[in-house]
Every structure is written in C-alpha cells, then in structure tokens.
C-alpha cells in the first residue's frame, strides 16, 4: 500500500482535503461501505404506492426482489410529500414484513380456551352460513304500521378507514343488499 493510498484510506484526511468537509458522504466511506449496493438499485420491480398510516397521503416507492419487499422509501415525485416519510411511514417495511404478522386463519370455538387452525375456504363457508342464519333469525320485513323495513339488525360491521375505496364500496353494497344497517367505520369515531 502506497503512502497516498494509506493516507487516503483515513477518513479525516479525506474530510480535510476533499469535497466533503462535514464528513457526511464520500469522506466517511469505508472500503466495505464503498462496495455496498443499495437495495433500491438491485430491485426487480418498484411499485408506486401510498403510505397506509395518516391521511396526508405521502407517496411511497415499494422495492421488490425475488417476490419480497426489500425496501419502502418516500416518493420524491409526490407533490404532497416530496420524498419524505415520518417515523411510521419510514417503518412501514416492517409493517409488511414483520414476523408477527398473522398469515394463517385462526379459529376460536365457543367456550374454547385456545386458538385452533382452520382452512380459509372452510372459514369462508362457515362465515357465509352464520351471516345467512343471523339474518334469518333477526329479519324485519315491515314496521308496526306496515311500512317496509327490509332489514336485519342481527349483524354489524366496523372498519373501512384503513381500506381502499373499492373495498368500502363492495362492503356497503353487499351488506346493504343483505339488509344490514349497522355498517360503521372510524369516521364515526
């Protein structure tokens, strides 16, 4: 190793002589960090997304490699957020990739003391049966004066403010056609 190379490997030297007097960029680079490549550069694809937390609507870029989310960053193109994310938005990769995320249907039978496994298709079928039964048991055709009610107060729903417009539309459309009224979300809270 020549003297110049040896000196140049010393960050303080680079900081004093180079174009990075604050030592925040090139001057601070080590041999190892020089060889690193950002995950954003090796991604197979990038999805344009929106932060799922508050309603400011900051732009996100979601980087994907081998079918896995490898990074989520602020979208500099967004005229709303200009590339910035807050602590929650910046942590949203962990929201998506967390090992705590539930990936399997869980079932607790009446009077049960533990969760059990359940197949998704079976769960869907059981839920459909319960909706139909609750509706049948509580159906109200007309009020005491014979005016139409066409409804059930036998089941309710809460949620929607974290969901997509298209999802809220189908929720309301399906439940309304089933005669359910008690459909609510965080906007009431």
């Amino acid at each position, binding site marked *: 190793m020549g003297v110049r190379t040896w000196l140049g490997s010393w960050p303080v030297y680079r900081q004093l002589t180079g174009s990075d007097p604050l030592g925040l960029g090139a001057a601070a680079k080590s041999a190892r960090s020089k060889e690193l490549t950002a995950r954003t550069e090796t991604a197979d694809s990038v*999805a344009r*997304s929106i932060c*799922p*937390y*508050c*309603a*400011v609507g900051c732009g996100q870029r*979601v980087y*994907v490699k081998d079918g896995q*989310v490898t990074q989520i960053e602020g979208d500099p*193109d967004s*005229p*709303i*957020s200009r590339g*910035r994310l807050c602590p929650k938005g910046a*942590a949203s990769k*962990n*929201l*998506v990739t*967390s090992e705590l995320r*539930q990936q*399997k249907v869980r079932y607790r039978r*009446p*009077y049960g*003391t*533990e969760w059990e496994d*359940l197949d998704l298709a079976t769960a*869907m079928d059981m*839920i*459909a049966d*319960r*909706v139909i039964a609750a509706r049948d*048991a509580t159906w109200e055709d007309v*009020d005491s004066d014979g005016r*139409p009610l066409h*409804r059930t*107060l*036998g*089941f309710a*729903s809460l949620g*929607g403010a*974290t*969901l*997509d*417009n*298209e*999802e809220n539309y*189908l929720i309301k*459309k*399906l439940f*309304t*056609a*089933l*005669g359910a*009224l*008690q459909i*609510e*979300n*965080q906007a009431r*809270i």
Partner: protein
Amino acid sequence: MAECHPVGFQWVMEAKDRGATVIHVDPRFTRTSALADRYVPIRAGTDIAFLGGIVNYILANELDFREYVLAYTNAATIISEDFRDAEDIDGLFSGFKPDRHAYDSTTWQYEGQPTLTAGGADTNNQRATAGPLLHESHGPPLAAGDHRRDETLRDPRCVYQILKRHFARYTPEVVEATCGVSREAFQAVCEAWTRNSGRERTTALVYSVGWTQHSVGVQYIRTGAIIQALLGNMGRPGGGILALRGHASIQGSTDVPTLFNLLPGYLPMPHHALHPTFDAWVGSMSAPDQKGFWASARAYATSLLKAYWGDAATADNDYCYDYLPRMTGDHGTYETALSMIDGTVKGYFLLGQNPAVGSAHGRAQRLGMANLDWLVVRDLFMIESATFWKDGPEVATGEVVPERCATEVFFLPAASHVEKEGTFTQTQRLLQWREKAVEPPGDARSELWFFYHLGRIIRRKLAGSTQARDRAILDLTWDYPESGAESDPSAEAVLKELNGYEVATGKPLSTYVQARDDGSTAVGCWIYTGVYADGVNQAARRKPGSEQSWVALEWGWSWPLNRRILYNRASADPQGRPWSERKAYIRWDDKQGKWIGPDVPDFEPTKHPEYRPPEGATGPAGLAGDDAFIMQADGKAWLYVPSGLIDGPLPTHYEPVESPIRNPLYGQQANPARRAYQRPDNQLNPSPPEAHSDVFPYVLAVGRLTEHHTAGGMSRNLRYLAELQPAMFVEVSPELAAERGLEHLGWAHLVTLRSAIEARVVVTERITPLRVGGRVLHQIWVPYHWGGQGLTRGDSANDLFGIVLDPNVLIQENKVGTCDIRPGRRPTGPALRDYIAEYHRRAGVTPERRSPIVTTDPHRED
C-alpha cells in the same frame, strides 16, 4: 400537526420560512408548539368560547372583509321573527323540547321559509340518524325563491346583527375566565388572524380530532367557519379550513361510506317513516325547484340504484328502492356496541379496526363482543379485539371467563397496502391509486377479495330462494372480473363502477352532470365521477410535482371533478377579478368567455359573473354569476345555519359533559341536545350543578404520538416504533405532581366511573396549570395507543371514557373528560372493580342515577 401529520407539516414550515405566522392552540405543548411563533395553552373543551371571542373581536371592530361577506355569505339574510337566541333563554335556543331534549327548528329559518330538512323541523329524528353528516358535500335544501336581504346589514333580524348580539358577551375577560387564556395572548391571536386576512392576505385554519371528538364537535368547526367566512378566507389560496384526518382513507370511507346513515356520495340511507317511497326519499334531498347542483339529487339516486341492481332496477319498480334497508333510529357504532351487551346483535365484522382499544368505553366494547354469537376479525396482527376472550382486562377481573364465553371468533389475516391495488382518498379529497407490489402471504387476502367471495358464496347458497327478502342479494350486480391464482376481483372494475357509466354502452361518464334520472346511467358514487373519465384511471396519474404547476392537477385526482380548492370562485371578486394579484387564483377571462386559473374552476365554466337567473330558474341555472358556494341552496356560505343542525343555528359555549366547573355563560351546563345513553353501565362523572364533581377534579385530555398510530395495531407490533415509544405514560405538570405526590418515571393511575388505568408518570412543563373561574385547574394528558397486545403493552386510555355523543354526527366525546389521579399502580383482578365501585359510592352514583341534561329552566326568558 407536527406530531400526527409530520410530513404535511413541512408546508407549514415552508410558509413560516416565507414569513407566515404560525399559532398553535392546544392543551398540551407539542412538537407543533415548539415550531410555532406563538403557543397558546387552552382548557380542553372550551374552543367555542375562544373562537367566539375572536368572532366578537371581528364584529365589534368591523374587521370583516365586507365586500366578500356581502357577496358570498348569508350575512344580509333576514331570519324569522320568532327566533330566540341562546343568549335570551339561558343557553337554549328557541324551540327546545325538554321532554326529548331536542329542538323544533321551525323558528330558526330564513324569514318566510318552510323547514325542508329531512325529517322536518323535529331534530329528534335527525339526531338519531346523524342527519347533518349528509352535508359534507352540500348544504340542506331551501325552498325556491329569493330570501329577503338587507345589504346595509343594519336590520336587527339580519344574520350579521344576530351574530353580533350573540357573540357580544364573548369578551377577552370571558375568554380568560373560561379558557384560561391570558388577555394578552388572546389579543395577539385576534390581531394576527385579522391582520393576515383580507384582499392581500389569507389565513388557513387547521384542525383534527381535537375538534371532532366532543359533544359539541360540529359547532367547534362551525365557529371556525364563521371566522373564516367573515374574514374572506374561504375558496382562496392559503385560506380555508383544513381537516387533518387520521387514517389513510377515512375521507374515502365517508365519501364511499361504510356508515349506517349514508349511501355513496352523501345520499341518505332511507328512514322507514320519513322515506316510505322513492319520491319521498329523493324529495328529502333537494327541494322542488331548488337552486344549485344538489337539485340533481334524483339523477344521483337513480344512478346509484342502477349501479347496485342493474337490469332489475327499472322505472316501474322505482329502481328497486324497496330493496334498501330502512333506518328507524340510531344504528351507529356505539348504539350497536350497547346492543351487543343487551344481546340483540349476533355477529360482528371488524375490518382493520380495534374497538377494544380505539373506541370510547373499552370495557363496554369488550363486554359487548363477549356476548356475541360470532365475531370475524380481519387484521394484519393479533389485536386486542380478537383476544378479549383470552387475555383482555375483563378476563383479569373475572367478568369474562373463557370457558363460559360463547363468542365464536374467526381471525382472518388481511393483505397489507402493498399487497393489493386500489385507491385511498387522502385528507384533501385526493384519490391516489396504489400499485400492487407483491402477493399477500399465506391466507392473507384483501377486503376486496373477502367481500367479493363472501358475496359470491352467499348468493350461491341462496340461489333459487323464493323468499322476497333474498331478491335484493340475488338481483345484485356482482360480476367483477377475476384474475390470478386466488381469483382476485378487479379493483379497477370497481373504480369504473364508482365513476359511473352509460348503461347501454358501458362508456365511462366524465362528469356527474351526465348522470340521468331515467335509468340510462349507473353511478356508484356520483362525487367520484370523473376519476375514470375517458376510460383512464385518473387516480393513477403520477406526473412529478417538479414538472407541473404548484397546484399539481396531474397528480392523482380529487373530487369533485379534480378541483383542488373548493368554492374557488370566491377567490375572485363578484365581478370575476382577483381580490388582489398577490392572491389571484381563478378569474373570469372576458376574451375567452370563461373562468381560468391554475385550478379547475369550482363553477360553471362559462357562466358570466354578471349572470342573473331569470325568474323561477332552478338547479344550476338558478345560481347567479356571483353565487360562489354552488352546493348551497342559496349559493352562500352560511354564517348562520337555518336548518341542518341539531343543537342550534349558532355555536355557543357549553361545558364538556364531564367538567369540573360550572358553565360561566349559562345556566345550561352542557350541550342540551347531546346524544346520551343513560344506563347503569355507562355512568358519566358528575359535573356541576350535580353534586360530587370534586371526586374527579382534573381535566383529562387525550392525544396521539408521532411514533404510534391510533389503536396501535399498526404500530405497537413494529420493532422500530415500539422502541421509539416503549411505554404508556401520563403527562402532568410539576404543580400537579406536587399536589398528588406523583414521581417522575414512577407509576400513577387515573380513575373515572368506568375504570382505572395505570401509566408511567412524565412530570413536564408541557402541561400548564390554568387559572379558570378564579382557581387553578390542572389538566392531564395521556396517549391512547396502548392495549394488551404487541411489542409494547399498556393500559388503554379509552377505558376511562364513557359514551356521550355529538348530536349532529354521533361522534363520541373522548378528547376531554374528568378524572382522579393517584400515585402508584392500580388494583388488579376483581379488586379493580371494587375500587371503581368505591368511586361510584363516593360520587353518589347508584345504578338508577341519571345525569341531568337540562340544567336551566326552559321556560325562562331573560
């Protein structure tokens, strides 16, 4: 704003750099206060007194923007001679019916104007069905014809004079005694706000749930609206009232509502008695021959029913109107939770929402769920609302025993925001499309998948049914294209339905003006028409902000019709000229014969500013060229609201329902029209004039932290966020810490009639003791993000609150209450309930006790 909407706050900082003055009013010093030019501490729950003082300052000194006020507001309109103000009846407006603590609003109307609000003049029905929520997109109906005005604003019955008299008592001294705000600080706010408003300057007003979650929440915002309209700050760049909403698409879930009383686009869910027929339903939305764009309500309603029921919906069957379920009263989330306790609700779906932590009266929420037949929880993480039967607080107290709890629980994992495509509507009505990045893991699915397939399975199971009740579900249009290994329905096809299309050709509509009332168009949500104009997903537009104008019309799409500032016609004077070049936005261009500017004009594009409607003109043609507020039935911003509100045409100060002090202004203590649920399991802390309010001597305020999100499901399970804010805590002032022997970083517990919770103590000057009503009043602040699950766990602040609601929109008061605070941890196990019972005894509260709602003599007239 810096705490809860930090990235939005960058624009406040940008404005500050350019010389803007930033004022922050809050019970607690936050990161926003730290960056503001002036921080004003205030007693939680007194915002109407504070803002009303500013209205008084404006009117007493004639600082209103007179030309704007005359042209664009209802200041000159004459009100019925039968109207009596709350100032005349000790805190009640005319028409109060003490037996049902609701108003008959007949006397509030414009002179000679019949009441046309859905439900008539009796506000009792409107309250039960949260009727005023309809007006998020448009004002209440008014009968045709001109309303008498006094352009000199001198008639004692004109709105301007009524306002002036109403707010005359809101002096700096009253503000100081009520809010605990010094006269010096109050004067500074008044001067800054008025000085920075007018032709050359505009002021923006920003609020969040600190305003909505009150028993007078709607009237808080109304007071802000009065100030902004008087100062000419509406419809102009740099002005407005900006609601910062707290969930990614909470605006969307109001527009495309999962709300009991609304159908998409703010159409009302029918009421059994008020809307027995299609014509009665449509007639309730707009008056015959009404002015303005809401006159086309029939087309929006018909087109929605066509979107729902397709070929089955015909003119002969009133487009299947009878398929819609009918409301009979309050079917809101709190009524529903209490009905679960009472055993009338069998099943419950929770979709990315965690009421065990996030809703007021957590114990009632959990006891309700423990009394269901079945519960479906769809979430990313195992949340408290899914595990209440196993390890909730009531399992600890012995009130819920797993072996005796019958609730069947299905936990279905949900897809995250990057695992599905669709639109969020952010807080400024902007729709932004998200692309799908990856497939969801394991059994995780989107709500779109879940509901599409649930509907498919139910329809299959009911196929062939001959029951009349099943026609609505079997005739439903439910045929969205599927793709992928999991048969995902197409979100884009749903977006196209929301936008609306011609039934015959399937061609997407480009504006809601194309919606028809003859069944030839189908529109899922009329205010979203245009988002799929020309068959293009306009919400997916991503032209970089740096490559377009500052209004950025080519990024996403906002309703209505991509307008970014609502009512922007008001940015020009009545003749169509900008109020000033500095604040120019939309203007009339005579040469081109149209309105031009950097935004989409919120006005008919070629209507001349001097256009005057011919006698008898209706709908949009009935609006004059200077009627800037086009969704209002008289084209004006309403300083005074003659119909559509339940608790009065003007805001006036009431104490929070739980308050340690007597209302300084009236014998009437709290909102007399509030929605109350008086039952043994929902007792509220006593407040004056009731005895024993001293048992709960402190004001309790609640809020959020930057590092956590609402009920915590999306943040307490994240490693970084749990580390940044690792524990539930309570903020108290050094003075209160000394008074109650609380140690910094030690434990304390807070007590109300509902429960007790414990938290680590943070002794901080961020909380200022206030002088109110001649004594020192302490406030206590807690975050509400914690619960029993996740990487960081703690007691839930919402366990402290009971249920009492704003009457207009049925939102709970849980931004303010009263409590006791004691050093040390709370009792555990059954001893916790004994401890609470002891507080009931000390407060003189028996199961039969009912809090008084009317606390003045309704027949008294001063």
